[in-house]
């Protein structure tokens, strides 16, 4: 599903953000990426969403070879990958259901279909009752679940979540993690980065550890270690 082959990303000033990183993720896998700030996790995600181009190396996601991607294919690529961010990135002047609908509007789906789909997805993240609330009226955990709903509403094969629990207290963090597990059970490949040791130990999934731009360990059922 995701294949990185000796990917290096160098920014002008500092050294390499990523150095010859190779990673293979199978369909329906749940992979946790662990690493300290500045280790290269965010760069890795930006490469996957094509916000950045690798300096060298090959990236193939869902059968799409990034080398062969034209500029006009990038929006289509992004529609196939669900993304969740630490800071939620919700639109503050839209309600919960409008925020979720936003992703479908961009994809050009008919309004009737959007109205039909959005409540179902809100149900998946247990937010049906809040569909007409604005993000400011929700707790952090609820906001992040809205963001997840928005990410999965187009039924992507891959969901990448960049520190989705970074701003949340433990209880809400686990709510979010449980939703991610549920989505993974539906068959979506999930890529999650986190700092949180408890979450890693709770999930008992494959753990990839990055340090200084290199993968230093990759375990099938990993424990948090740095």
């Amino acid at each position, binding site marked *: 599903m995701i294949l990185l082959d000796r990917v290096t990303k160098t920014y002008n000033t500092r050294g390499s953000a990523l150095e010859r990183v190779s990673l293979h993720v199978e369909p329906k896998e749940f992979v946790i990426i662990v690493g300290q700030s500045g280790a290269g996790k965010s760069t890795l995600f930006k490469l996957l*969403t*094509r*916000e950045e181009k690798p300096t060298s190396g090959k990236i193939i996601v869902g059968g799409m070879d990034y080398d062969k991607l034209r500029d*006009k294919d*990038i*929006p*289509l*690529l*992004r*529609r*196939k990958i669900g*993304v969740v961010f630490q800071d939620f*990135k919700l*639109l503050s002047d839209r309600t919960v259901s409008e925020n979720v609908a*936003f*992703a479908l*509007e*961009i*994809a*050009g*789906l*008919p*309004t*009737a*279909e959007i109205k*039909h*789909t959005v409540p*179902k*997805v809100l149900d*998946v993240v247990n937010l049906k009752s809040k569909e007409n609330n604005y993000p400011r009226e929700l707790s952090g955990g609820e906001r992040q679940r809205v963001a997840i709903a*928005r990410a999965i509403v187009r*039924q992507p094969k891959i969901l990448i979540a960049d520190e989705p629990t970074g701003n949340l207290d433990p209880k809400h963090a686990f709510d979010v993690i449980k939703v991610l597990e549920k989505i993974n059970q*539906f068959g979506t490949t999930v890529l999650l980065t986190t700092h949180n040791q408890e979450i890693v130990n709770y999930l008992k999934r494959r753990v990839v550890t990055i340090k200084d731009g290199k993968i230093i360990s990759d375990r099938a059922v990993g424990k948090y270690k740095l």
Partner: protein
Amino acid sequence: MSLKKKTRAKTNPKMKQDHKFITLERIFKNGFVNFGRNIWLAIAAMAMMGITLTILLFAVVANATFSHTITDITSHIDVSVYLKDNVTNKQRNDLINNLKSIDNIQAVAYISKDQALKNYRGQNLNNKELLAAISETDNPLPASLVISPKDPNKLASIKDYLDKPAVKSLQSDPTSYSGDRKAAIDKIAKATHFFRQAGIIGIIVFIFISMLIIFNTIRMTIFNRRDELVIMRLLGATPGYIRGPFVVETMLYGVVAAIVSLVICGGLFAVASSTLQASSLGLLDIKYSGDYFKKNLWLILTTQILAGIIIGALSSTIAARRYLRLR
């Protein structure tokens, strides 16, 4: 999720068909929504555009009025030949026939002494002293031939003929060529030419200023909404879908500015023609301007709106390309 997949599969073929149309509809809808949200920023841009379009409109109307004035005056240029009282009918008819054979002459009209007196009385109805003075004596006014030339700029051939001694001997007074009027017309034509050029330069300058202001408006809007734009980009919105609403929004500026400018101009013409009693202000025949404006209202409205839309679309397209860096 499985249920969702089913419904999606059902609507998919139709979705592909409607996709373009839905996207366009949403771009327009978002443009309208943004226009509403942004109204205070938009007002500055619309005011500037309104001024530009008003100047454009005034230039067009003034141009039409000047042209009309020139045609009007030119058509009144003629050559008057005053005949001695002792000229016989035959001499007169010979003269008329000879004149008619000259190339540049469109028409020759004969005005008899009686007719001349009638005209004179008609022109001076209010001046009782003049009327009294003229009725006391015998009719002092000469009979005359009024020659309308085809081209008032080429009077030489007519003049040559009238200056022949044989012809000259029939005339009581020197020929009147409206010569001073021609000089005035030349001046008007020159002034019109100047105004036209100044108008074109003025319009270009104002279009440039409005475009700069729209540029800045769009830049500020993009800055205000950068979070939303980043999110749109990350969710896979195409550059067209992101830029489109900005272009729609500024096209709306153009439409609003055009209508406002037209209402202001219409009001000004209405007030001007009623307070100035449709009088001529020197070269500018206000009544004609007002009539021209009324007669061509729809054409002017369409042109204004089109100009507004073009200015708006052009500047926002450039601004969005310049400031909305989309990767």
